[in-house]
């Protein structure tokens, strides 16, 4: 192993380790004015009283602080609940903003230093590891040793990585109070971009974007010489950096709602929620554009682009989830299950989520236009169920946490409602297909093995059949790894695209329908 590469690996692991322990350092002290700053007016009087025992107390860790906070807070709520005094119960999460405000540790005093020794060190180490990769090697497929790798073949390192990601996502979604130090360290960056202090979502977006950019560079190294992979990777890097990260923050700076112009309902499941609609409607011409553009993407963008290019135009060229899967997730693409059974489960699950998303949105819109007369707060319940199960647990915890366990497209394959919608168009009305090159297939299995969507590509290739599958995201890796030049992603006439009774070229004795 090259020395730079080795140092890079050490720096990366060091950065990651500091990042992982950073949340647990520092001390906390709550004062009344912090509560007055962070709490909504309607809860102010109650909260100031509830937290009174904590003022001026010195806490040595966030565990101690949060547990004391929860005790006081829960006490108050439990009493109200016991008396069925529902109107007074406080449902808002104040643990996170108050923990952040009460933090007196070294991170808030010196955020740049901590950012440097965690994220920056990790990025530097990652780049030092990536740049020397495959140097002085001819262009070609770089899959040597993947199945001997503990990281890439569900070994101990893979399991540890998966566990780390799962734990990180659970804390991020449901216990952000424990991440305050990490959020504090990106505060200056957030203020520079949007004028606001960072939230856990800013931290997440920042790390997410860096992961795509750094691992995107790895893709350039790994697929050197493959123009399709290079351009496609550059595209997901651009869309994440510009559309998902920078532009929304700049919109906030301009007093506009945070908006990702490339996100499409129903992946963007909250698009029709009342606060989003109100936010857009109250933001002038640009807000109106957000609404109209979003609807155009749903009703025209998806069908038209998918007709011409297949769902890949979105899933492996634009989408943020796809972007992470195609960069950070690339080392794990071979771990997807290729069995017929998993395909059956996949179809139930992904179309189930689509139905759920459509019904929920239909109820939401009906409720909105009826002035909340029909169902009252029932939509809120639906939203929180969907947000918890699909938006957080499925898309986040399972979607990314399971990369090293079940491959990099678990969410895209089993859960994404937009992928389901794009897939229906791709399957039934599109010019896209993966063409099989006559009789050249040798059934080696590289295509199926490296298909992140778990498509048994070989099943089609060896019978001379074009691959037309709703789940195919058009990443192009099956074509890249094919040793005999059998697979080509292409857009062409619909005629002959789907061929249920293919004939393999080459045998003139008989015509065999495979």
């Amino acid at each position, binding site marked *: 192993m090259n020395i730079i590469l080795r140092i890079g690996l050490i720096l990366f692991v060091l950065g990651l380790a500091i990042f992982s322990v950073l949340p647990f350092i520092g001390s906390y002290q709550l004062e009344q004015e912090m509560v007055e700053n962070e709490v909504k007016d309607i809860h102010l009087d109650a909260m100031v009283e509830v937290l009174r025992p904590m003022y001026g107390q010195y806490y040595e860790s966030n565990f101690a602080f949060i547990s004391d906070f929860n005790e006081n807070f829960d006490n108050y709520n439990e009493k109200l609940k016991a008396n069925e005094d529902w109107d007074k119960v406080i449902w808002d999460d104040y643990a996170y903003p108050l923990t952040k405000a009460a933090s007196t540790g070294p991170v808030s005093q010196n955020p740049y230093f901590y950012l440097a020794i965690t994220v920056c060190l990790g990025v530097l180490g990652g780049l030092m590891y990536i740049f020397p990769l495959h140097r002085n090697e001819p262009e070609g497929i770089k899959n040597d040793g993947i199945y001997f790798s503990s990281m890439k073949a569900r070994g101990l390192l893979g399991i540890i990585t998966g566990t780390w990601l799962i734990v990180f996502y659970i804390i991020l979604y449901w216990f952000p109070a424990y991440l305050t130090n990490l959020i504090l360290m990106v505060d200056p960056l957030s203020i520079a971009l949007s004028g606001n202090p960072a939230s856990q979502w800013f931290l997440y977006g920042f790390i997410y974007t860096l992961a795509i950019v750094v691992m995107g560079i790895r893709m350039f190294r790994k697929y050197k010489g493959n123009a399709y992979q290079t351009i496609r990777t550059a595209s997901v890097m651009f869309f994440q950096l510009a559309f998902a990260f920078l532009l929304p923050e700049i919109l906030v700076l301009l007093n506009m709602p945070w908006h990702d112009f490339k996100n499409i309902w129903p992946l963007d499941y909250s698009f029709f929620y009342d606060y989003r609609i109100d936010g857009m409607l109250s933001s002038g011409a640009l807000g109106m554009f957000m609404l109209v553009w979003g609807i155009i993407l749903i009703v025209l963008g998806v069908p038209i682009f998918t007709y011409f290019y297949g769902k890949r135009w979105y899933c492996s060229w634009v989408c943020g989830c796809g972007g992470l899967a195609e960069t950070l997730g690339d080392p794990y693409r071979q771990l997807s299950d290729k069995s017929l059974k998993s395909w059956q489960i996949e179809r139930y699950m992904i179309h189930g989520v689509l139905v759920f998303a459509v019904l929920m949105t239909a109820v939401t819109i009906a409720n909105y236009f009826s002035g909340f007369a029909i169902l009252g707060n029932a939509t809120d319940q639906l939203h929180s169920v969907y947000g918890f199960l699909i938006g957080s647990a499925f898309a986040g915890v399972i979607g990314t946490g399971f990369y090293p366990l079940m491959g990099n497209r678990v969410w895209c394959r089993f859960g994404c409602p937009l992928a389901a919608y794009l897939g229906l168009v791709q399957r039934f009305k599109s010019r896209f297909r993966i063409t099989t090159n006559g009789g050249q297939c040798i*059934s080696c*299995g590289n295509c199926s093995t490296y298909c992140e969507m778990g498509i048994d590509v070989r099943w089609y290739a060896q019978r001379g059949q074009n691959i037309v599958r709703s789940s195919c995201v058009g990443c192009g890796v099956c074509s890249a790894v094919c040793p005999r030049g059998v697979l080509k992603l292409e857009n062409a006439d619909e005629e002959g695209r789907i061929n249920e009774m293919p004939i393999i070229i080459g*045998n003139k*004795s008989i015509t065999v329908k495979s």
Partner: protein
Amino acid sequence: MIGPSTNSTDRHVVIIGNGISGVTCARNIRKKDFQTRITIISGETAHFFSRTALMYIYMGHMKYEHTKPYEDWFWEKNRIELKQAWVDRVDFEEKNLIFSDKSQMQYDVLVLATGSKPNKYGWKGQELNGVQGLYSMQDLELMEKNTHEIQKAVVVGGGLIGIEMAEMLMSRDIPVTFLVREKNFWDNILPVEESKLINRHILEHHIDLRLETELEEIIDDGNGKVKAVKTKSGEVISCEFVGLTVGVSPNIDFLNKGNESNSEKPTLELSRGILIDAYFKTNIPDVYAIGDCAEFKNAPAPDRKSIEQVWYTGRMHGETLAHNLTSRKSVSYKPGIWFNSAKFLDIEYQTYGFVPANIGDNEDSFYWEASNGKACLRLFFSKSDQKLLGINAFGWRLRHEYFDKAISKGYSLEKVISEIDKANFNPEFYKPFHEEVLKKYNMEFGKTLKLQKQSFFKKLIGSRA
């Protein structure tokens, strides 16, 4: 649907060998014949796997399970019985198979699809530990053991398996010396420019390629293990592993075991392989042979060999025999336009039709090579009418369908050159070669063919040429 099968009830078809030929035969029998009992016997593995993918298991690209083209439930669902056992001998008179564990199996129809075994040419030391060929799963397991923590390997034989073995070893950072008897790599099949292109690529991968170098003997370390090889020129190259990849020959040794001495019992007619007619029939009724192990008494076509040891031909043999075993009217084996492919390290090779290594008086060829020396194209045509006879392509994927048509319909060289972008099968956004090819052609043949420009809209929607 039960097809027009002949005497299908209660018939037991037994296929020895679960490679592409035997498995294709079994699958296609089942498609047309619901009733016949089908058994596939193999000692090598329990299930069908892709032999061509063995190298990828060694290189860590895949595991054995990934090389299985069908999931394990497939066989039971299609009522194809699998038996993992080695056949010791065949009693053709009693239609009985005797296995190495002495158990027996009756058959009504026997299909021999026993494949090949690596050649060994009687070199001194060829039986030493650390010396082996590569054909079967067992060979792969042995190679795994033989190359564990070694410092140096030698591969003997400049063919397809030889370069694969070199690539496999290099993937584990084991330095390889590659002994090739010929002037250039695989030059008994490839014209010299193509051979040289691959020579350069082999060197680019830091493989120590020794052209025109023959093996003299393999030297023992005193404990029955290889220590070095000696070449005909007297050079001694020390190594701990020797890969012998000097071709394969039909795996037929066991077939007449126990039958030779007994003149009353029928014996199978063998030459280099199992002799068959155009219907895959051997000299014994109800016994057929397909794939690598079969030798046609008359080659299937003038440009074909009497033993076809290629994945694709094995598949076609299997398809055709299955048809004959399930139809009233038998057909003879008539392969179409020849095609083949391979991958030499990072450079893919495809060929359609017939391109000889040495070009005769009545034919000529047009050759183009990319400026980086990593892609090339040779169109081989007859001088008299300029009709395309065959094509070699390196580093450039081409459409099988196009060339199958172009060669069978006798497209002219000029037609093919002018529309070769129609046959382009490289991934999207790859640099197109068409303009360069046209330039070279125009220069050599004094023509002024021009590139047909695609409209902007067609380009935008990524339409096929």
